[in-house]
């Protein structure tokens, strides 16, 4: 037995159980809950290090028992697993385990065998999270793909307007060589089943009902009936005009069936002013989008031009301008954050290029967690029923926000994965999931990742200049790594489709080299099916102002004038 100081231990191997890490420049701290690494036998690659023959490598392991890839000594922050110091083992592009890597010949408790064919990456001092799942993306232009990856998004679920089938085929062909999983939700634009059959056959994972294509009660009912029969997702942007339906009519049309309600704060579209009433409905899985999160002093003013230009309106038409102003109600944006804090809104997604910023999906989630932590410490949150545990409140001198961070991380990882029937593949780093892993330096958490592994291989990252003697020499910029290059990317990325699609026919028609993976388990979900954001909230909404109350208390956060993960990190 030998002794080393606490400080030297962390310098060599990173954080361990009980240590706290501050995430970026936020007010958020996570505490390492468990350390699974092998004390004394930590696998380390390098000069005078031990990841070699006869040491922490099991030389007899070549073949099926050894890992393909090892990421050693990271702090995993995962919405399902928690905060764990561990080694990540990868086999065949999927997570083989979050545990203890090395050689069982010389170490006890090895569950991840390092062999001569294992490719090691050193993660000591880094944080690993599952790649974010952005479940509301309009693929308006392909320019959104690079910012998505640079912000740690590795799966996108689209939000309609990708149809019809020939257009879907082009989008899928264009995404083919990018290291991102994709599932296309096609717009539901008619009541006949043949048109929906054709969309599923073309590779759709589900349908988007959008008021700009019609969000009528009979269409909602029809699409949900079809979805229940064909196991596909339905995402909903309701009728903001009240042309065909008001909130009660929409709720009646949903009829307690599972639906993913988009931008339920309503500013992104839908019933004015009370769309937020959907948070009362257990079968409605609610999300809200990047531009209103967190609620800031400029949120309302920027939304006028955003809505005007996004929805085909004209500044020359006074009625169009008035229509937009009706929709931009500060009161409901003020309630959005508290409803996320309650867990009644479970998902954050970007609404990329249809009023949202795809590279900020994770960043905004962490900014919101920061803002809502401050709200919990203000009188504004007093007396509101149903607020979840906040460790930092319990013991401000020994503060950590682990459950808060996990709840907000879940909003961009596991919750959308459950909602879209892809949680067996993405959204967490549990065994068997695709090894879509984002590695962060703690100081840059949530804003600028170091490295993105896609399907178990480095696919994107802050790569340095290519002539340099070392990697990551300045200027470092986000670029495709080997796993993100054409031909390589499809080996680590999948297209999500439904079980109703003839996958071999579709693969032939698309000429894809990607795996086509069916979604499943997504009908019959309720709020309680989600991982960490399960609340329903019996809110009262003022029908004139949109102001929201819960338990007789106003539900509102004041707009912020400054957010973390921003000015310190971004050039201008």
């Amino acid at each position, binding site marked *: *037995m030998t002794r080393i100081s*606490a400080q030297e231990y962390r310098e*060599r191997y990173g954080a361990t159980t009980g240590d706290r890490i*501050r995430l970026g420049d936020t007010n958020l701290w996570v505490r390492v809950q468990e350390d699974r690494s092998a004390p*004394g036998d930590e696998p380390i690659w390098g000069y005078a290090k*031990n990841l070699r023959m006869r040491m922490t490598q099991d030389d007899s392991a070549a073949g099926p028992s050894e890992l393909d890839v090892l990421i050693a000594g990271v702090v995993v922050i995962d919405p399902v697993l928690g905060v764990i110091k561990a080694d990540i083992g990868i086999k065949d592009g999927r997570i083989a385990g979050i545990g203890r890597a090395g050689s069982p010949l010389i170490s*006890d408790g090895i569950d991840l065998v390092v062999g001569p064919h294992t490719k090691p990456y050193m993660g000591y001092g880094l944080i690993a999270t599952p790649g974010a799942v952005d479940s509301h993306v309009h693929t308006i232009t392909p320019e959104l793909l690079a910012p998505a990856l640079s912000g740690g998004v590795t799966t996108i679920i689209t939000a309609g307007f990708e149809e019809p089938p020939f257009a879907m085929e082009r989008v899928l062909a264009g995404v083919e060589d990018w290291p991102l999983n994709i599932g296309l939700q096609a717009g539901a634009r008619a009541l006949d089943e043949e048109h929906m059959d054709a969309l599923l056959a073309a590779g759709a994972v589900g349908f988007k009902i959008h008021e700009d294509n019609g969000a009528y009660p009979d269409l909602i009912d029809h699409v949900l009936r079809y979805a229940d029969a064909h196991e596909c997702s339905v995402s909903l942007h309701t009728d903001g005009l009240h042309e065909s339906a008001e909130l009660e009519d929409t709720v009646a049309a949903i009829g307690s069936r599972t639906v993913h309600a988009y931008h339920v704060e309503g500013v992104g579209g839908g019933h004015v002013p009370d769309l937020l009433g959907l948070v009362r409905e257990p079968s409605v899985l609610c999300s809200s989008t990047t531009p209103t999160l967190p609620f800031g002093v400029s949120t309302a003013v920027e939304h006028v031009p955003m809505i005007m230009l996004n929805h085909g309106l004209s500044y020359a038409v006074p009625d169009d301008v008035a229509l937009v102003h009706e929709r931009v109600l500060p009161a409901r944006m003020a309630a959005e954050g508290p409803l996320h804090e309650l867990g009644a809104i479970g998902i954050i997604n970007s609404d990329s290029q249809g009023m949202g910023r795809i590279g900020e999906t994770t960043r905004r989630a962490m900014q919101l967690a920061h803002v809502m932590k401050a709200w919990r410490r203000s009188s504004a949150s007093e007396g509101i029923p149903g607020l979840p545990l906040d460790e930092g409140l319990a013991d401000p001198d020994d503060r950590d926000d682990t459950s808060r961070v996990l709840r907000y991380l879940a909003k961009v990882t596991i919750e959308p994965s459950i909602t879209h029937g892809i949680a067996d593949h993405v959204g967490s780093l549990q065994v068997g999931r695709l090894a879509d892993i984002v590695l962060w330096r703690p100081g840059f958490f949530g804003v600028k990742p170091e490295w993105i592994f896609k399907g178990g291989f480095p696919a994107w990252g802050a790569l340095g*200049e290519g002539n340099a003697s070392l990697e990551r020499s*300045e200027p470092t*910029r986000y670029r495709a790594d080997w796993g993100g290059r054409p031909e390589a990317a499809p080996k680590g990325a999948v297209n999500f489709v439904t079980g109703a699609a003839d996958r071999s026919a579709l693969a032939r028609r698309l000429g894809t080299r990607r795996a086509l993976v069916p979604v499943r388990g997504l009908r019959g979900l309720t709020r309680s099916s989600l991982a960490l954001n399960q609340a329903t909230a019996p809110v009262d909404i003022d029908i004139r102002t949109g102001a929201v109350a819960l338990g007789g208390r106003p539900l509102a956060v004041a707009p912020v004038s400054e957010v973390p993960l921003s000015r310190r990190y971004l050039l201008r």
Partner: protein
Amino acid sequence: MHLIPWEEERIQLFAAAELARRHRAAGLLLNHPEAVALICDAMLEAARAGASYEAVEAAGLAEVEPSEVIPGVRELLTEVRLEVLVGDGARLIVLLDPLGRGELPDRFGPGALVLGDLEDREVNAGREAIDLAVTSQSRRRIRVSSHYPFHRTNQRLEFDRAAADGFRLDVPSGAYIGWEPGETKIVRLVRVAGSSGKAAR
């Protein structure tokens, strides 16, 4: 011009540094990319003017005062890695903690790690241990790392090899012990764990 990628990349650094200079001149505190760009640009310019490797390093370290950055940027800026063209060609320069000026970082700054347990850590606890005298007969320095099977070490180390079979050095993973020519050291070995450790028992 026939600009190679190297040159284009340095134009990118220059553009970022110009922007940062403008912001600094306007009295704005610098953010992380601005500070990195200024430090890189100072080194590239010093190298262009013919400065030595050491003078280029010094120019990088002197370029940005800690008081000129947004609080917290110093803690984010742990390293700058840059290749510059000095007189004898392209050279790598690595500046560690370039805004530190010998001061300790903010314990609670961005990305801070606060230890939950300040106790010394025991490594290799509970393993069978033996002490062996080991003498080097080499004319050169020898180093042995934590997990090298000790009985297989360089033949110029003299010790009871039979006793050492199944053992390795009792040092932290990735650490090592060195012998100068002719030096004798008493080292503690621990039996490896895992299946080979069990087989030996």
